[in-house]
C-alpha cells in the first residue's frame, strides 16, 4: 500500500504529536518545566553533568575516555558558571549539534549525535527545565584538557561532517505508536547506542553493527539486538521492562557499572508505558549474532561446591597465595554461597544462569570483581564490594582476580572463556584503548609527513612549469 506523500506526512505529524504529548497540557510554564524534567531524566543528563557529591547539573564529572578525561560542564542556569546566558537557539545547537554558545565544538562524550534526533518541542521543554527548574550553581566546572591533537576542538567539525546526522527523529508510520515511542526513547533520549553500538576507528558508532555490543572502558555493553543467542531474543518484553526498572532479572542478568547508573538515574524513573515502549522497540532490533556465541549467556552453569574437598586438606597458613577454589570460598562464597547459587531470595544472585559469566566475553566479570556493583533502584541498595586496588574489603592481585574469575567461569559460566593476569591489568587501566588513542604519539608525525609530501608535490609541479 502506498500513501500519498501529503497524507503520509499528516499521518506522521499526528503520530508525532501523540508521541511527544506524554505530559499533557503544556499551557502553563510549570507543565513545560515538568515535561522538561522528565525528558532530562530520560536523557540521563544528571549522570554525566553531576560530580560525585556535587550539586546537580553543576558539571565536573570526569568521563574517562581513551583519549583522556573529559569533564562535563556546568549546565545549571547560572549566567556566570553555567548556561544561564544561552538562548534557546544556542541551547539547541549545543544539544543537537555539539556546538557551544562561543562556537567551540563539544566532544562526542556528549551524546549529541543521539540528541540530534530530539523533537523541537522536546528541546523547548528541556530548555525551559534547565532555565527554570534547575538550581543555578556559580562557578565553571573543571576544564577538559586533552592532549594534542585531540585538544584541537575544530577537528570535531570534520568528524561531525562524517558522523553527525542532523535530521530529527522521523516516526515510521508502518509501525505502531508504541514502537515509535520506543524508537524515539532509545535512539534519541536514552542514547542507548552510545554504549551498545561498537565504535569504529574514528570513535563513531558503527551503524552496520547497531546495538551489537560495545566496549566501555573496563566494561562491555552487551548485544541488545533481538538475536536469541547473542542478544535479548529469548527475553520477554516483561523481563526487559523489569530489568530497566530494577536493574535485574533473576536467572538472567543484573546491571552493574555504567548500566547500573543508567537504571539508577534514568530508566527506573520512566513511566511504565515508556519502559514497555522501549522493550517493544528493543525486541524488534535486527538480529546480529556474535560468531563466538553458541548459546545464550544466561544458559550456562550449575551449582557446584568444592568445600567438601577443601576442608581438611588446606590447613591454617600464613601464606597469602592460593588457588581458585580457596579464593572463591573466601572471597565470593560468603555472599554468593558455597555452591555459587546465591541466596534463596536471590538478593545475592546466582553465578550460574548469569550473563556476566556466560557471554562470549569475560570483561564484565573482571570489571565487576575489580569495581563491584553499586545500584540503587526500586528503593533498595544493591552493593557488591570491588576487589581492585582501592578495595577496603580485600584488594586482590591481577593473578588472584584471574584465578577466581577462571574458577567461576569454569563452574558457573562459559568454560571456554579464560582470563589472564594481563587481561586484569588491562581492565585496571580502563580496558583496551581504541586505535585512535594508540595513535596520538604518531599522529603529529603523520600530519607532518602529509604536509611534507604535499609541499614536495607542489614544488615538483612548480619546477615542471618552470622547466
Amino acid at each position: 500500500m502506498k500513501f500519498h506523500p501529503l497524507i503520509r506526512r499528516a499521518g506522521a505529524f499526528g503520530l508525532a504529536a501523540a508521541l511527544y504529548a506524554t505530559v499533557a497540557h503544556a499551557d502553563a510554564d510549570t507543565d513545560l518545566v515538568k515535561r522538561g524534567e522528565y525528558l532530562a531524566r530520560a536523557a540521563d543528563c544528571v549522570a554525566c553533568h553531576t560530580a560525585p557529591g556535587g550539586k546537580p547539573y553543576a558539571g565536573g564529572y570526569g568521563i574517562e575516555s581513551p583519549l583522556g578525561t573529559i569533564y562535563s560542564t556546568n549546565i545549571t542556569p547560572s549566567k556566570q558558571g553555567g548556561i544561564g546566558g544561552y538562548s534557546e537557539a544556542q541551547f539547541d545547537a549545543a544539544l543537537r549539534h555539539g556546538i557551544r554558545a562561543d562556537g567551540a565544538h563539544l566532544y562526542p562524550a556528549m551524546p549529541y549525535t543521539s540528541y540530534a534526533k530530539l523533537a523541537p518541542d522536546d528541546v523547548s521543554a528541556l530548555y525551559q527545565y534547565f532555565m527554570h527548574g534547575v538550581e543555578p550553581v556559580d562557578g565553571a566546572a573543571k576544564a577538559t584538557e586533552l592532549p594534542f591533537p585531540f585538544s584541537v576542538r575544530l577537528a570535531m567539525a570534520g568528524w561531525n561532517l562524517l558522523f553527525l546526522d542532523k535530521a530529527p527523529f522521523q516516526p515510521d508510520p508502518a509501525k505502531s505508536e508504541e514502537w515509535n515511542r520506543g524508537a524515539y526513547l532509545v535512539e534519541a533520549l536514552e542514547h542507548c547506542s552510545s554504549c551498545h553500538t561498537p565504535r569504529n576507528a574514528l570513535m563513531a558508532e558503527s551503524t552496520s553493527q547497531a546495538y551489537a555490543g560495545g566496549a566501555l572502558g573496563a566494561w562491555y555493553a552487551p548485544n541488545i539486538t533481538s538475536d536469541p543467542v547473542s542478544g535479548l531474543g529469548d527475553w520477554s518484553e516483561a523481563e526487559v521492562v523489569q530489568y530497566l526498572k530494577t536493574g535485574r532479572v533473576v536467572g538472567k542478568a543484573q546491571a552493574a557499572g555504567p548500566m547500573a547508573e543508567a537504571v539508577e538515574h534514568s530508566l527506573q524513573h520512566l513511566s511504565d508505558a515508556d519502559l514497555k515502549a522501549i522493550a517493544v522497540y528493543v525486541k524488534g532490533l535486527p538480529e546480529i549474532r556474535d560468531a563466538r556465541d553458541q548459546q545464550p549467556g544466561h544458559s550456562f552453569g550449575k551449582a557446584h561446591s568444592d568445600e567438601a574437598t577443601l576442608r581438611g586438606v588446606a590447613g591454617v597458613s600464613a601464606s597469602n597465595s592460593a588457588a581458585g577454589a580457596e579464593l572463591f570460598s573466601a572471597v565470593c562464597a560468603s555472599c554468593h554461597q558455597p555452591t555459587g547459587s546465591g541466596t534463596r531470595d536471590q538478593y545475592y544472585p546466582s553465578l550460574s544462569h548469569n550473563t556476566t559469566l556466560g557471554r562470549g566475553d569475560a570483561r564484565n566479570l573482571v570489571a565487576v570483581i575489580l569495581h563491584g556493583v553499586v545500584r540503587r533502584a526500586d528503593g533498595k541498595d544493591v552493593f557488591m564490594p570491588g576487589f581492585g586496588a582501592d578495595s577496603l574489603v580485600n584488594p586482590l592481585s591481577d593473578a588472584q582476580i584471574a584465578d577466581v574469575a577462571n574458577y567461576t567461569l569454569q563452574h558457573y559460566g562459559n568454560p571456554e572463556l579464560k582470563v589472564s593476569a594481563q587481561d586484569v591489568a588491562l581492565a585496571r587501566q580502563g580496558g583496551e584503548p581504541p586505535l585512535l588513542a594508540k595513535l596520538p604519539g604518531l599522529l603529529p608525525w603523520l600530519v607532518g609527513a602529509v604536509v611534507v609530501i604535499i609541499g614536495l608535490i607542489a614544488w615538483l609541479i612548480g619546477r615542471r612549469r618552470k622547466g
Partner: protein
Amino acid sequence: MSDNLSADVVVIGSGVAGALVASELAAAGASVLMLEAGPRLERWRIVENFRNQADKDDFQRPYPAAKHAPHPEYAPDNDYLILKGPDAKSYASQYLRVVGGTTWHWAASAWRFLPNDFTMKSTYGVGRDWGIGYDELEPYYYRAEVELGVSGPNDGTDLGSPRRQPYPMDHLLLSYNDQRFYDVLNANGFKLVSEPVARNSRPYDQRPTCCGNNNCMPICPIAAMYSGIIHVDKAERAGTKLLTNAVVYRLEVDAQDRIVAAHYKDPDGNSHRVTGKYFVLAANALESVKILLMSATDKWKNGLANSSDQVGRNLMDHPGTGVTFLADEPLWPGRGPMEMTSIVDHRDGEFRREWASKKLHLNNQVQTRHATLKALSMGLTGKALDDEIRYRSAHTVNINSFHDILPEPDNRMRLSDQKDALGLPRPEITYQIGDYTKKSAVHTHEAYAKIAELFGCREIEFSDSFAPNNHLMGSVIMGADPRDSVVDGQCRAHDHANLYMATSGVMASAGSVNCTLTIAALSLRIADTLKQALGKAS
C-alpha cells in the same frame, strides 16, 4: 637502608589506634611512618584459616603467631603471657600482632563510656578520675563513629551517653533470638537495648551490609564489620609508609627527655633505627608497656615515661561470668551477627560506691557446634542424635557479662626473665580480682537465674569463674597528676613532650563496656593535637 628512615610522626603499632592516627595525619599532609611487629595477612587467608580450623571458638587460631612477634596462643598454649597471682587465668588475654591489630576479631561493639565513668573517684569515691570529662570526648566519639561506621538505635533509646548527632547508620533489625529477649526482658523489669556496633546496616564506606555469616569473631569475611585494617589501607593510600615485621624494642631518648628514635629488629634479629619529630606508641596496652620498660636508661632506670612508677600497673579488663540453659521455646540463635543486644540496667548508679557496674549480653552465636558435641557426649545415634542436635541448636541460650574492676597498682605487668625468639622479654602479669567486682558478680548470678526462669529454663549451668574479655586497660594510665599517672589528658607522656600513647592502656577506669570506641576517639584527638603541632590543621 631503612635505618635512614625519618618522618614527622612515627607510629608504633598498626591496630585501630595507630591506623587512625596515621590515616588522619597522612591525609593532612604529614609524613608518617608506621611500624608493625607482625606480618600482613590478607582477609581471604584469615577466612580460609577459620574455615579450615577444627575448633571454631579459638579466635586466635586463624592468625598464626609469627616467630619473631609472638602473640598469645592457647590451643596449644604457647606460654607467651606469663600469668601469676590468684586470678592469673582471668587475664589469659587474646590479642593479635598482625597488620590491622586485634579488631580483626572483635565483636564490633562500639559503646561510648558514661559521663560518670570518667569521674569514678569524685563521683563515687572509688577508683580514679581521668582528668578529662565525657564532654571533651563527645565530638571525638562521634568522629570515631563516622570513621568506624557505627550503626545504633536511632529510635531515641537512651544509652546514658549524651549525643549530639544520630548514629551514622540505623541499627540492623534484631534477630528473632534477640527480638524475643527484647520483648520478654523489657516486659519484666530489665532494660535490654539494641547495642551500637561498628557493623554496616547499609553499604557504608565502600563496604557491604552485614549478611549474617555469624562469625564476626574470629573474622568478618566481607568487611561489613569494621577492622583496623580499614584505616591501615586508608593510611597507606594517603601516603603513610608501613614497615611490617618491624619489632620495636627500644625508644631512644635525648638529654632533653625527648624521644629521638625508635629501634626495631627485623625477623633475622638485625637492628634498625628510625627517627621522627613525634612518636605515637600504639602497640596495645601490654606491648606498649614492654617497649617502655625495655627502653630503660641510666637516667630512666624504671623505663621511659615511668617517673611515676605506674607503667605496667593498674591492669584492668572486664571480668566476665556467664550462664547457659535450654529455653522452653525455640529461639534459633545464629541469624545475623554474633551479638546484638545488651542488658544495661546496672551500668551506673550509687551502687558503684560498693560494687562494680556491669553489662550483660545475649550471645547470638549459632549453637550447632556446641549442640552437636553435647548430643554426641550423650551417646545418641541416628535420628535421636539429629533430633537432639536440632533441639539444642534451637533452644540453647548463652548470656555473658562484663564487670567493672578498679585500677589497683598491684595488678601489673613486668618484663619476664623468659625471652622470645628475638631475645626480647615476655610479659609477666600478676592479677587479682577484688571484692568490688566479686560482689557484683553475685548479683549477676541472681539476674541470670531470673532471666532463665522467664524462659522456663532447663539444664542451667553457671560459669561463675571470671573469664578474660581482652579489654586491656590501665597499663599507661591517664591522670592529671604526673606523680601517679603516665599520660596527661591529651594522652601525652608526662615525662616526654613528644611521646603520645594511643592505646586502651591510658584508660583510667574500665567502666562496663567494650573499650574500642574510646580508643578510637582518643586516637582521633591525638591526631588533632599532632596536626596542630605540625601546622597541618585545616
